[in-house]
């Protein structure tokens, strides 16, 4: 094993014993099922034994983007004729399709008759387990889905996008476990009917759907995942408040985005471990409710939530708490004996955070997106940051400031912005907080950067410093790299040039090291994986 056997001729000299073709057909089909439709079809030319493997694999996955050449109209023609030919092939050979994934283009009414012909065959005769159908349609256009889809007893997963579910009489989805509806038009009655007729359903997602004013999730006995996303409607009229009621004891994960009225009161979720709320209106009382009624809650994320200025959270179970995008600085008291990770992301520094925990090993991750406050009130900004760091000083702190470069604005020297009294703030006795990782975007030009660091080092003692980089845009690469090198030099030179600063007497050593764990050799292009290690006097 491990050696590459040379191709051998079989005894009859006709068949070659290569490294792959002699695998049993079901295994080859399994491997081919991970390729795209196009790649699977291409394997037909490998050799004669591969002639029909790719075109008989147990899954069909077509999307318009696979058809690249030709004009729009032409592409859609090809799409329909190739799909038709493919399905006909499976039908003629009585092959089964486990997974059916089709993203339909819609030019005129032909796809409708096409689907009316094929959906019943795929659903009823081909034993499909996973069915996914989506359409490229304009806003408020929906495909009227044949109700026969809901009669597929073998179906385990159903994904629909841009469909309209009307007049569904018979729901026989006895084995359905996952239902995902995206931009689907569905009424309350239909939704409830589907849920109550799927005894094994575990995962339900409603993303950007319309046609209802309230959603009740109270029937399924095995439901453990529920996701609701209403952000597609976010910037439209807000009188259309949707009520969501979830009353399923088995639920483990709830993700709600943009729902304006989440009815959760008087409901006890003994197994809920993950709660993700985004753009949801909450009150301070909601937190008391979480504390009492979700005894297994381990992950709580509050993402752009509103309606409260402060919260008090008491939870023995909570391990990961993430607060992100608060509009105004919040006040928070968290009593979480088993906390492992606290993450705060936002434009502003919280007004106050108090952590009570017996957890000995926990981390906190602070990401401050901009320094907008800093530009106007530098000294109070540093003061607030110090208070935040002090509140989290029992944890291993990581502080990240990926400040945006203000290219078109006048770049001011932060040194001039920082009043001299920062050194004397609170009598000049700031207790610097140990920060494990400090990641900064750096200032441009770098001549002003030491001024910023000077203040930062008054309040914290970072053990490592690295640079936040955004490297997605290729054109930016060279510039970023140059900046990074400058940035590192600035810090390395700090000791020499900044003797006048008080904190410098505590800084014993600055060294540069690679922090990529793959153990690759240091290379100029890998400067991204370099950080500074700072050793402070104890």
């Amino acid at each position: 094993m491990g050696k590459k056997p040379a191709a051998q001729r079989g005894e009859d000299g006709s068949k070659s014993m290569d490294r792959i073709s002699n695998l049993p057909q079901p295994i080859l089909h399994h491997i081919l099922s991970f390729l795209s439709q196009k790649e699977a079809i291409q394997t037909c030319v490998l050799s004669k034994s591969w002639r029909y493997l790719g075109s008989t694999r147990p899954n069909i996955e077509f999307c318009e983007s696979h058809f690249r050449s030709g004009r729009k109209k032409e592409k859609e023609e090809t799409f329909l004729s190739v799909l038709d030919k493919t399905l006909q092939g499976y039908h003629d050979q009585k092959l089964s399709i486990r997974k059916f994934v089709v993203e339909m283009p819609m030019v005129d009414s032909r796809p409708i008759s096409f689907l009316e012909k094929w959906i019943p065959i795929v659903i009823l005769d081909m034993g499909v387990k996973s069915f996914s159908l989506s359409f490229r349609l304009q806003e408020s256009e929906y495909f009227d889905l044949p109700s026969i889809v809901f009669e597929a007893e073998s179906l385990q997963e159903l994904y629909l996008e841009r469909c309209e579910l009307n007049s569904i009489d018979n729901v026989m989805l006895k084995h359905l476990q996952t239902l995902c509806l995206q931009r689907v038009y569905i009424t309350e009655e239909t939704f409830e009917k589907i849920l109550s007729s799927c005894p094994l359903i575990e995962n339900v997602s409603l993303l950007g759907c319309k046609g209802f004013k309230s959603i009740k999730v109270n029937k399924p006995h095995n439901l453990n995942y529920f996701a609701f996303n209403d952000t597609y409607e976010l910037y439209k009229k807000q009188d259309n408040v949707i009520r969501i009621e979830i009353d399923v004891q088995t639920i483990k994960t709830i993700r709600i985005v943009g729902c304006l009225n989440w009815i959760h009161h008087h409901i006890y979720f003994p197994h809920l471990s993950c709660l993700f709320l985004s753009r949801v209106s909450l009150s301070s009382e909601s937190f008391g409710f979480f504390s009492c009624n979700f005894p297994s809650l381990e992950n709580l994320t509050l993402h752009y939530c509103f309606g409260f200025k402060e919260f008090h959270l008491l939870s023995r179970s909570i391990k990961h708490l993430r607060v992100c995008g608060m509009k105004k600085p919040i006040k928070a008291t968290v009593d979480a004996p088993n906390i492992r990770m606290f993450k705060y992301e936002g434009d502003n520094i919280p007004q106050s955070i108090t952590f009570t925990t017996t957890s000995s090993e926990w981390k906190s991750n602070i990401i401050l997106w901009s320094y907008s406050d800093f530009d106007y009130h530098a000294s109070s900004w540093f003061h607030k940051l110090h208070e935040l760091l002090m509140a989290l000083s029992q944890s291993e702190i990581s502080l990240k400031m990926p400040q945006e470069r203000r290219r078109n604005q006048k770049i001011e020297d932060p040194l001039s912005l920082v009043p001299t009294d920062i050194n004397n703030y609170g009598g000049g006795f700031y207790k610097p907080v140990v920060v494990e990782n400090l990641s900064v975007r750096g200032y441009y030009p770098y001549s002003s950067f030491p001024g910023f660091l000077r203040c930062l080092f008054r309040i914290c003692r970072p053990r490592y410093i690295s640079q936040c980089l955004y490297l997605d845009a290729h054109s930016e690469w060279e510039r970023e790299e140059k900046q990074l090198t400058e940035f590192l030099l600035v810090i390395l030179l700090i000791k020499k040039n900044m003797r006048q600063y008080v904190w410098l007497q505590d800084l014993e050593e600055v060294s540069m090291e690679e922090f990529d764990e793959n153990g690759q050799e240091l290379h100029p292009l890998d400067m991204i994986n370099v950080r500074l290690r700072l050793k402070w006097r104890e």
Partner: protein
Amino acid sequence: MVTTDEKGPLTAKKKSVIIRSCDGDEFLVSESAAVLSTSLKKILEEKEDRLIHLSDIDNKTLAMVIAYLSTHADDGLSDDLKRSFDQEFVSGKEFDVLKYLVLATDTLQVTCLCYTVAKKMADIMKNKLVEWVRREFDIQNDYTPEAEAEIRRLDAWAWDDRQLEDD
């Protein structure tokens, strides 16, 4: 539950079985690990034998499958750790090693590992030219040029943009 020896049913969970590869090496495996393979589970339910002989799995492959089973039977490991173990498990393995693994996991019905390995094998073929796949796997092209051109013509849609790597 198998209770063939004097220890009785209560300790049955901690009992071990011996699995012998086709080249004669024997592996001591906890029963809780062995039953993660649907085939081994069936054998253990049907027979009282504590020695299972696998006539078509070699010792190196078997050792890898058993390492996988033991890791996944370890209650002390979190699901995250198990997932990262799975990723490590297939990364960097040669195609031929994966081939024996996929055959073994298919025989033993270890569904999760079979899925991971098959996916890894597909990843190797992904975004590659037909010529690369033929060369890499020593596939003898037994089509005449005309026959191959004809197949390409029949499924012309699949060949309309070839910009894949050929290294």
